[in-house]
């Protein structure tokens, strides 16, 4: 018996909704940042209960947000690939040919278009998928994965990635990667400005007609800006995590559905669990894309409250446990039906 079929349609709908929520949340964060900056810089002020001045930075932040959303949608995959220094995977060696073949096999199994293949020159075994939909999908594996996995294990890993493609996880996760990166960049930028101007509020505002005699208020707003700028990346990081963890269990299950072989991914994850080498290119912005967390060196095997809150991936041991349960059930069933298995 094959595992219960995953309802990719429903997952796709969830992802579309989450993408909208993501864009709205990111926009709200940016507008809040822009507004605080406007007040701090003095381009707008509240005088006698009325807003005076022109919220130039708020509008700039809004424009930045819109630009970022569009960029992350249309160019997200290229940006992600660039940031991890991936290059197109060509059949230049037998091992690379095998990977391309396995990608074809899993595309057939999942009834999806064949994704473009990329490779990262990294000895740590890992993989991720990106793109905006199944027709614009990219699958990237590390050289370490190619060298350390046999064909069966590759099928498991690539099946996992194809499932992220099938249910549009790739779109949500790629947009998260680019937008989280953008927010981090922006708040960094704000910090720099704060340091250069010595954190003194109201300086730019002296040009306008807003009141700058309110020094205490200016300091308060400066603090608010710092807090906001500090919180923004944390919020965006939390968003990134929230959208990522459940997906891994789902993708593991769908990988088994595609390969009809729980041992494939199980063996791959067990092998990865033995290797303690974090990825060189795994940055905060892209960690959630990978099949296993590239940053933690697989030390995320404890599942405490904070691990749950701050990790982009479920503990590897839990995922292995679930796959073992599937393999056990599958083997018992197959054994009853077919003495060869």
């Amino acid at each position, binding site marked *: 018996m094959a595992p219960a079929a995953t309802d990719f349609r429903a997952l796709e709908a969830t992802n579309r909704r989450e993408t909208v929520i993501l864009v709205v949340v990111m926009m709200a964060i940016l507008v809040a940042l822009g507004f605080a900056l406007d007040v701090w810089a003095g381009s707008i002020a509240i005088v006698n209960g009325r807003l005076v001045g022109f919220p130039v930075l708020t509008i700039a932040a809004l424009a930045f947000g819109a630009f970022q959303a569009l960029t992350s949608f249309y160019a997200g995959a290229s940006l992600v690939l660039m940031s991890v220094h991936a290059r197109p995977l060509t059949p230049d060696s037998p091992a690379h040919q095998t990977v391309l*073949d396995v990608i074809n096999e899993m595309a057939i199994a*999942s009834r999806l278009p064949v994704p473009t293949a990329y490779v990262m020159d990294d000895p740590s075994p890992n993989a991720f998928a990106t793109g905006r939909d199944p027709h614009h999908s990219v699958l990237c594996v590390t050289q370490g994965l190619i060298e350390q996995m046999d064909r069966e294990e590759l099928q498991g890993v690539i099946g996992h990635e194809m499932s992220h493609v099938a249910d549009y996880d790739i779109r949500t996760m790629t947009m998260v990667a680019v937008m989280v990166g953008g927010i981090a960049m922006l708040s960094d930028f704000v910090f720099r400005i704060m340091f250069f101007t010595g954190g003194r509020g109201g300086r730019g505002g002296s040009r306008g007609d807003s009141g700058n005699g309110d020094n205490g208020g200016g300091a308060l707003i400066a603090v608010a800006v710092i807090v906001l700028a500090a919180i923004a990346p944390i919020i965006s990081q939390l968003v990134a995590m929230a959208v990522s963890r459940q997906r891994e269990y789902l993708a593991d299950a769908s990988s088994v559905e595609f390969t009809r072989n729980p041992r494939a991914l199980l063996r791959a994850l067990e092998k990865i669990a033995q290797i303690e080498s974090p990825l060189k290119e795994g940055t905060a912005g892209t960690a959630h894309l990978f099949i296993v967390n590239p940053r933690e060196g697989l030390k995320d095997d404890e599942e405490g409250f904070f691990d749950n809150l701050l990790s982009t991936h479920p503990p590897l041991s839990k995922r292995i446990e679930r796959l073992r349960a599937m393999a056990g059930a599958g083997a018992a069933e197959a054994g009853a039906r*077919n003495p060869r298995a």
Partner: protein
Amino acid sequence: MTSVVILLIVLAIAGWIASAYNSLVSLRNQVDNAWRQIDVQLKRRHDLIPNLVEAVKGYMQFERETLTQVVEARAKAVSAPDQPSRMAAETQLTTGLGKLLAVMENYPQLKSDENVLKLQEELTTTENQIAFARQAYNDVVLGLNTRVQSFPSNLIANNFGFHAAEYFKGAPEDQAVPKVDLSMSAPGAPGPSGPPRV
């Protein structure tokens, strides 16, 4: 008032009929498409076999019988007059190729022949793609048949000539065995009849 209610009910029923019909059409197209996928892979396998046999026969003089079996099954599949006899020949071919790939393990000289290795990888992936295409085909057939047979969509199916499609039944061992891993480059990889690794 009553006429409005009746009109709404009629519209709702018409809408349901249209959407049920459309989803049946979509499922039937998926089944056709999935079938073509299998066909593509089977053709690719036919094209591959002469090259493979040519490449290995020098090394494998003692396996005449296996090679002949493969060549004959291929000839039968290519010239089959109808679908059932073709499928029977394809199944025979799958078995023959499995045996060939297994006995190739006994000829270590083959591992140093780059051309053979290349052909072997191609054959391995083709066999896997056939298996996966068959699996995908059966998945969409399941979807179509459920629609065709279950109430109330069966009313639409019966009236508009939608039929349950037939599952692709392969050799019995194909159903439970994981996809083959015959790459010689992976050390310790067992042949197709080897025990499943845990």
